[in-house]
């Protein structure tokens, strides 16, 4: 798997992330039901108690640390259910993960997106 780990800023959802993030992603998935979104909104911390989450998983959600969610085993298609519950777009989340204001991220996308040059290998970015 090391060849994938050489890609900067990328967290391949592989067997280890699936294993570590299973319960976390199942919690995220639960938010596809309106009544669960409502329950989550009214008391996030106790709603999350229904799943055996790690401290870093809980913290990342409570703080809306979108990158932290990924690092804690979240998969973007599951954590996006939290964004949806917040009424946020994929673009909002992507900007947050890449660490720039949404307007700046949007301008980068309008200008053709993040270039692949310099972003292929950690050897380039180090």
């Amino acid at each position, binding site marked *: 798997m090391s060849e*994938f780990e050489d890609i900067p800023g990328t967290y*391949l959802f592989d067997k280890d992330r699936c294993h570590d993030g299973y319960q976390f992603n*199942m919690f995220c*998935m639960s938010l596809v039901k309106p009544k669960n979104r409502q329950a989550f909104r009214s008391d996030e911390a106790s709603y999350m108690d229904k799943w055996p989450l790690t401290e870093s998983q809980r913290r990342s959600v409570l703080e809306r640390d979108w990158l932290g969610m990924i690092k804690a085993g979240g998969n973007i298609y599951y954590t996006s259910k939290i964004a949806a519950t917040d009424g946020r777009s*994929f673009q909002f989340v992507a900007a947050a993960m890449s660490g720039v204001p949404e307007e700046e991220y949007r301008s980068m996308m309008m200008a*053709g997106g993040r270039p692949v040059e310099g972003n292929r290998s950690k050897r380039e970015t180090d």
Partner: protein
Amino acid sequence: MARVVAGLATSHVPAIGAAMDLGKTKESYWKPLFDGYEPARKWLADLNPDVIIMVYNDHGSAFSLEVIPTFAIGVAEKFLPADEGWGPRPVPAVHGHPGLAWHLAESLILNEFDMTIVNEMTVDHGLTVPLSIACGEQKNWPCPVIPLSVNVVQYPPPTGKRCFDLGRAIRKSVKTYDKDLKVVVFGTGGMSHQLHGERAGLINSEFDKNFLADLTRNPQRLIELPHIEYVREAGAEGIEMVMWLVMRGALDENAVEIYQHYHVPASNTATGLMILENQPLTV
């Protein structure tokens, strides 16, 4: 005898569906993209297919991580749009084609594809956005749709070669269905994009344009592309493009390109659309 007459590959970005659902398609951000869809819509309406086989991926909607099928085929009468957290898209229910779908399931399994058969599921933007792109706003979708979902969320997805070979087997299976049906195969997802991590927003137009260029006449190069190439060059979520190879495999070797459209960006994503048609049989 049923036959695959054409293929359509397209991105399935959720924001494209949202732009239609919210009436934003004439806004300057969206207009160039949607203008490019007009010829495809006219083409599909003129072709008037009897069934669409929709090769797409589910994004944690019908399937969770509990059960992750590599290839799943929907054999139900009806599939409702999924609630992906924003509420279901306000688009029509999708009607399936149990007859052809079961025929495909049966013959694919007997031909050594290890299909998961699905009797009940919702369909998310991966399936409904391509329908919106190709059919426009509709009270009812113009024909039945067979959902064929490919895992590209959990690593590893099937290889490009396996996807292409699945397309080949679909082509063969359709030919042995005893009703006279015009079938169009959709391949969806991509093009280059990455939705997660510090590298989110990655676009590689050169990769995409080479992909579009080779799909019709040089698919062998794409069949051999390893997963790492997609992830590194086209972004982690760009791996969805393996699903275009199912469409390509379902068409004849000498299929011809009818239309192509490429636009950056739609939200975080480079979008592409391509139409292939099989050549009429020379008599």
